[in-house]
């Protein structure tokens, strides 16, 4: 009787769910069927959401058994921490392949406030500091950090000040203070450990925003158009290599090999499209305990990747 009552109420619910919004021409049978399918869809979506949450919980539980990555660089330099840090550094050095240029997509402020990924991240300045430290530990010479809304560029001074005096960054660089070249689309600063500012920096850090992507390509089109109008360049000479030359990395590095997406949503949030051409994309969800954990997982994932380049 209970089963019958449940079935009847489901059918009635299906009818109410669909009859009201449907067009007059559909038969009652069609409407009921659509209503039942609507309920089935909602149940499937619920099952998916539960499955995704369960997966994230399992991943989180598994990662709790591992060492606390963040403590290795934030904590005091006890013997145990120093040993673990050295072990991790050796492990990262032994990976069969590492990126030369790491790009990290940070979520915007509104996403940090409203979504679970915000729990893994601290403020923007803290995140840049942590990413710089982890890149130095993994010996990645080029780091680009992207936030769509341009908030990183606006915090340039506070980021530069933090990196200048950072113990965390020093710990990532084996106890020494590194030379850092920090730049955004409008500013550049060489944060030197020594007075010799001509020495090659130990790491180049770029703070990117949406302005480094689509608007930059539009400005390039304007510039090339002016040259064509002035007769300096034929439009047929605008080839892929010419555009690639105009958009190459100013410090001679390749475009990002590894893009670390720190977001629960698998979208690159208008990351500069030209720079994505040969990038491996690793998404780390809110299940990661810290940025260090996220970077470590991304590097391990990158190490296993087979590069075939179209062959």
């Amino acid at each position: 009787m209970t089963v019958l009552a449940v079935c009847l109420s489901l059918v009635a619910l299906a009818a109410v769910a669909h009859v009201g919004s449907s067009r007059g021409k559909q038969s009652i049978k069609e409407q009921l069927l659509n209503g039942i399918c609507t309920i089935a869809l909602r149940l499937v979506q619920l099952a998916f959401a539960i499955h995704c949450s369960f997966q994230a919980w399992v991943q989180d539980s598994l990662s709790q058994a591992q060492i606390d990555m963040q403590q290795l660089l934030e904590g005091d330099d006890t013997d145990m921490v120093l040993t673990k840090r050295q072990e991790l550094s050796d492990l990262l050095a032994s990976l069969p392949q590492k990126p030369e240029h790491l790009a990290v997509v940070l979520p915007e402020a509104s996403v940090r406030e409203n979504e679970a990924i915000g729990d893994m991240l601290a403020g923007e300045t803290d995140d840049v500091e942590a990413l710089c430290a982890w890149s130095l530990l993994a010996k990645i010479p080029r780091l680009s950090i992207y936030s769509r809304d341009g908030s990183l560029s606006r915090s340039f001074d506070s980021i530069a000040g933090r990196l200048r005096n950072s113990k965390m960054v020093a710990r990532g660089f084996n106890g020494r203070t590194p030379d850092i070249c920090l730049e955004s689309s409008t500013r550049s600063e060489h944060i030197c450990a020594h007075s010799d500012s001509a020495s090659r920096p130990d790491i180049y850090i770029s703070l990117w925003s949406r302005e480094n992507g689509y608007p930059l390509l539009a400005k390039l089109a304007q510039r090339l158009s002016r040259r064509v109008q002035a007769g300096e360049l034929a439009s047929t000479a605008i080839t892929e290599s010419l555009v690639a030359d105009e958009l190459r990395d100013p410090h001679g590095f390749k475009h990002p090999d590894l893009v670390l997406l720190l977001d629960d949503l698998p979208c690159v949030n208008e990351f500069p499209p030209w720079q994505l051409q040969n990038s491996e994309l690793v998404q780390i969800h809110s299940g990661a305990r810290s940025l260090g954990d996220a970077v470590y997982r991304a590097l391990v994932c990158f190490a296993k990747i087979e590069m075939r380049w179209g062959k």
Partner: protein
Amino acid sequence: MQLKYLLILAIAGLYVLIAGSYKPTLPLHAQCKQILEYLQKQQRRLLVRVAKQGRIPQHVAFIMDGNRRYARKRHRIASSGHVSGFYRLANVLEWCNDLGIQNVSVFAFAINNFSRSPEEVSALMSLAKEKLRELADKSSLVKQHGVRIIIAGNRDLLPGDVREAAEFAEEKTQHNRGMRLNICFPYSATDEISAAIRKVTEDVRKGVLSENDIDEQAIESRLQIPGPPLDILVRTSGQIRFSNYMLWQSAKLAYIRFVDVFWPDFSFFHMFCILISWQLAYKSIKQRS
């Protein structure tokens, strides 16, 4: 004991009933295959109906990766993997059409794939020539559902006969008003963006466009695949990169899914799962755009 015999009798009876309505002269395995295909088709129809109660994406792109590894796994030559990949493409187009997806883009051949062995490139070009004509001329998708075929890419790199087949497929379907199928062949996103920038400069030179009006929209409208905005990008075979495919379109808040199956093994269930997860994420995507 009696229950066991009753069960065996029931199954035998059911088999006789079902077999009776099909061709009785077929061998058993063929009959079972027919029944299975029928059940799969009904299951798919039901899942399509369920999925269509929610939002349906307007534009989905596929990077059809894994054909050669699929063939190697079965100890066959690479070109047989590409043939299997083509048949899977035909299935996927059918599913997309059933779901009501209006625009589908597929990455058939990359410009840097010309660096593969000459035998493989030649086999791929022959396959493309044959299948483009077959798709445009004989496929039920084009005839019954009015699919329109557009070849996106740098055609100057194609051999003459393949270019003719591409032009034939486009001309034959140019008046169709159904699903739009963009076959990227041979294609690279950086080539597409460069070509769009070149067209912008040419249009400014001709006076069609003013220099002050050069913006993102001006470039986007001159891309080989200008729109509508890409909703979902799917890459099979477990590789997690874009491989220079639809970069402009994918970077604009497309929902990216990397699926760990080879393209010929991509099933309707994978498609269904991707669609459901996109529907769940749609609200977040819209909030960010």
